[in-house]
């Protein structure tokens, strides 16, 4: 084969500006956003005109998916450690220290107390794959969720704990009611419901109040 010399051509377009832009966009997203927290379940929350932000710290979140399965998650790892120790003692679960440590790393837990030991014995990947049945809240006394809440409150004794309820649009009212009962039996009557933001519809009293506040600032 005759030796064909590959012609060396210089590139026509200088890609530097494009690369610059790409780095800029990347830097923006690194600084302005956070990773979406891993969820064991997909939950689409309803919209609301409420403008208060969800608190980041000191939260005890109860998530309910559309089938009514209930999950408990707590943000602070230190708090999780105290919580699991309390639960272990009060419910006599017989968890080993390794299993309790596994809990402090787990995202959210939705298994009855009877299966909790087994669940924590699995490693992180298996935990994610397993379809958790949810914490039982089936009856009007609040089921097992009552005990989770009680131990969470004692773990947080004295300090304010934000109770968050995150439920799917299609969750039926009784599932929600049972969660409320679990809280009520623990004498907790103030909750925060996690929702997606939306604007106040025009022509309503709320819209006018908000307009007035904006005009005052202007």
């Amino acid at each position, binding site marked *: 084969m005759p030796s064909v010399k590959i012609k060396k051509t210089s590139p026509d377009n200088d890609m530097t*500006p494009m690369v*610059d832009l790409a780095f800029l966009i990347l830097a923006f997203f690194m600084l302005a956003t956070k990773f979406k927290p891993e969820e064991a379940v997909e939950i689409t929350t*309803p919209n609301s005109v409420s403008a*208060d932000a*969800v608190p980041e710290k000191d939260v005890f979140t109860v998530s309910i998916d559309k089938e009514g399965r209930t999950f408990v998650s707590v943000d602070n790892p230190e708090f999780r450690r105290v919580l699991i120790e309390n639960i272990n003692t009060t419910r006599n679960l017989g968890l080993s220290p390794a299993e309790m440590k596994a809990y402090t790393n787990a995202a959210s837990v939705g298994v009855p107390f009877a299966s909790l030991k087994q669940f924590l014995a699995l490693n992180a990947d298996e935990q994610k794959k397993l379809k958790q049945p949810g914490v039982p809240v089936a009856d009007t006394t609040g089921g097992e969720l009552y005990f989770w809440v009680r131990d969470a409150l004692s773990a947080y004794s004295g300090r304010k704990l934000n109770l968050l309820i995150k439920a799917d649009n299609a969750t039926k009212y009784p599932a*929600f009611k049972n969660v409320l009962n679990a809280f009520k039996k623990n004498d907790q009557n103030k909750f925060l419901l996690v929702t997606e933001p939306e604007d106040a519809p025009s022509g309503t009293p709320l819209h006018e109040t908000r307009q007035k506040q904006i005009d005052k600032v202007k």
Partner: protein
Amino acid sequence: MASIDAGSDGGGHKKGPGVKKAKKLSTKVDMTPMVDLGFLLITFFIFTTTVAQPTAMKLFMPKDVDKPEDQNKVKESGAFTIMLGKDDQVYYYEGLDPTKLQAIGFKGIRDAILNKKKSTNPEDLVVIIKPTEDATYKNTVDILDEMTIAEIKRYALVDISSDEYQLIKLTEAANGIK
């Protein structure tokens, strides 16, 4: 040996004799304006938007009291009851008589609430929300949202009684279970 020479058909545009060679024009595009616009747009979005955060809706419930004397009394003239049925159905009645209930959707309930608010003394107005077991969480949150939108100060989330539930079932049957 016959060989497939794919290259020669496409690449061998041999110009016939006598054709002038076209003048080669440069295809370089100056990207500077595009980059400028890009930066401008990015700066615009950085300054004008925030990453959407989920918001929290406060829900405060009164303490459960078993003694009827301690429960808050509701005046008939100020009572407005909203019941949530299945398939996003909303029923409401004024006063304390459930047999006068009317069916309405979520779109109409806001006007109904605002009308009631206009025609009632703010001291007496109490909205009672009774979701049935067929109602979804979305229905409940939407109604609580309507309370915030209409700026109703006193409202309550209570269980539905079996009589009212029967009435709703009858209404659904009469309207051809929607």
